């Protein structure tokens, strides 16, 4: 403890939102450069969107930090920026040591390889040597509860199996910083409990953990501090249960405004709790 682990100062991340076309095409780009009149129309069609605005986040080694906020408030972007996956357009991001980042959707596995082979692939991408992976592979497979599926190609996995494997890799490579984006709510009940226990144990150890989640109970239980993001800005930062409480109160106070601002969504766990 006491050593700085994450230092993010004044970071802002910009996305270009496009209205006309779903994706940029070369055809369009060439036409724009040839025909000046099209350029202005296209410039109007493109709009800047700041997913993060002047966010500060500092963590000491061993801290477990929760990130909460509504959908689209910038939680995933913040985690990806901390992981160095997305570069910050402004500000500084510095993280000490090896970073493992786990997203709830997709989990970066190669469908052509078996679960086992994927552990080697993602391990090496995260900078581990083959020897190091050899030494953890059995634990990874066991923790993920994949059984015989470890030798089947990831193509055949269910979503829960992928997430279990991803989580298992992330904790076994013993990263200095572990970033979890709504991961713990994907597996089944038993696995969730097991994963929650692991996070509990990590707390106070060498690892720094940042968890983005809608599960307030989880955040309150495992995090020492929490950051509440709203529209890309830090709304409140501080002791986890206090931030969660303020957030829940805010959500309860303004149900109409939220319903009007957002398309109808399935009831989220945060309201229920």
């Amino acid at each position, binding site marked *: 403890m006491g*050593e700085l682990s994450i*230092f993010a100062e004044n970071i802002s991340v910009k996305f270009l939102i496009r209205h006309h076309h779903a994706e940029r095409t070369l055809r369009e780009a060439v036409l724009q450069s040839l025909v000046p009149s099209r350029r202005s129309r296209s410039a109007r069609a493109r709009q800047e969107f700041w997913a993060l605005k002047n966010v500060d986040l500092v963590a000491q080694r061993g801290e477990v930090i929760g990130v909460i906020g509504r959908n689209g408030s910038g939680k995933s972007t913040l985690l990806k920026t901390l*992981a160095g*996956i997305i570069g910050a357009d402004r500000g500084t991001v510095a993280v*000490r040591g090896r970073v493992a980042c786990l997203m709830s959707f*997709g989990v970066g*596995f190669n469908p052509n390889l078996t679960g086992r082979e994927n552990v080697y692939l*993602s391990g090496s*991408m995260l*900078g581990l040597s083959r020897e190091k992976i050899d030494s953890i592979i059995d634990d990874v497979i066991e923790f993920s509860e994949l059984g015989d599926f470890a030798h089947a190609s990831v193509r055949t996995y269910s979503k829960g199996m992928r997430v279990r494997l991803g989580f298992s890799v992330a904790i076994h490579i013993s990263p200095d910083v572990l970033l979890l984006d709504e991961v713990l709510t994907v597996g089944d009940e038993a696995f969730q409990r097991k994963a929650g226990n692991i996070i509990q144990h990590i707390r106070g150890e060498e690892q720094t953990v940042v968890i983005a989640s809608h599960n307030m109970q989880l955040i309150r239980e495992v995090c020492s501090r929490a950051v509440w993001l709203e529209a890309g800005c830090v709304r409140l930062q501080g002791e986890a249960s206090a931030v969660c409480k303020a957030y829940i109160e805010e959500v309860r106070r303004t149900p109409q405004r939220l319903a009007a601002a957002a398309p109808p969504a399935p009831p989220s766990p945060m309201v229920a709790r």
Partner: protein
Amino acid sequence: MASTPSASGSPIPAYRNSVMANLRELLLRRETIGYLVSSNLRAGHRDKLLGNLWNLLDPLLFMAVYYVVFGIGFRQAGENPTEFVIYLCIGLLSFRFLDGVVTQSATCIRANRGIVGEMRFPKAVLPISVCLSRLYDFLWGLVVLGVVLAIIGHPITVWVVGLPVLIGIQLLLCMGLAFATAYIGAFFADTPNILGIATRLLFFSSPIFYFAKSEHGRHGIVPPEYLDLYSLNPLVGLFDGYRDVMLWGRMPAIDSISYLAVLSVAVFVFGFLMFSRGERDFAKYL
């Protein structure tokens, strides 16, 4: 490199996106590239009944189809069909290497969006592994060709030592193109369509199934006054070089090979710089 001030610990180095840091990190990722190459190869061969036999059958069948079309169909084979088959196969194999690299690189960032969007790693491992996978296929093709040459008793000369050099130059060219198309393909969704047209154009404007200039008792179809212009296509020198060392058994033309080498280095450097510049934005626009 920026360091951050802090009261409680030593400064942590911030994330960097410099070209040098990128290169250094790449050198540490040889194992990653190995895994990616094997997964790439597996994707093409594993699920098939014939398994590894494809490595042999694929180039053979491929060469057979083109021989039937151009050799027999278009009557290019002429007096000496064996010679024409070898001529054709050398061009085809080399072109297929380049074509495969360019086509696959254009989608490599998007195809791996799961990894690109969730891990920090030098993205250049993706186009590099595409190149090495296609190189592997190319080498298998050359082995098959070599066996065919041995069976028909084609004489092998000392100039065959030039083959690795030519392969190296082509690999460099392919890597440069792979970086460039991977970069463009990451940002523009219609890149594969346009590349499809571009590579087809390249196929017909390179001496693969025809002779460009009249030699070896063949009629060249490119008018002599346009030969200089035609030879600006670096593939002309490349294919001629391969054929010189494997088919004609003579020294490749130094001027066209040096032109090819210089251009390949330039394409490689340009492609890598371009790719490095776009790297930090890939995850954003997937």
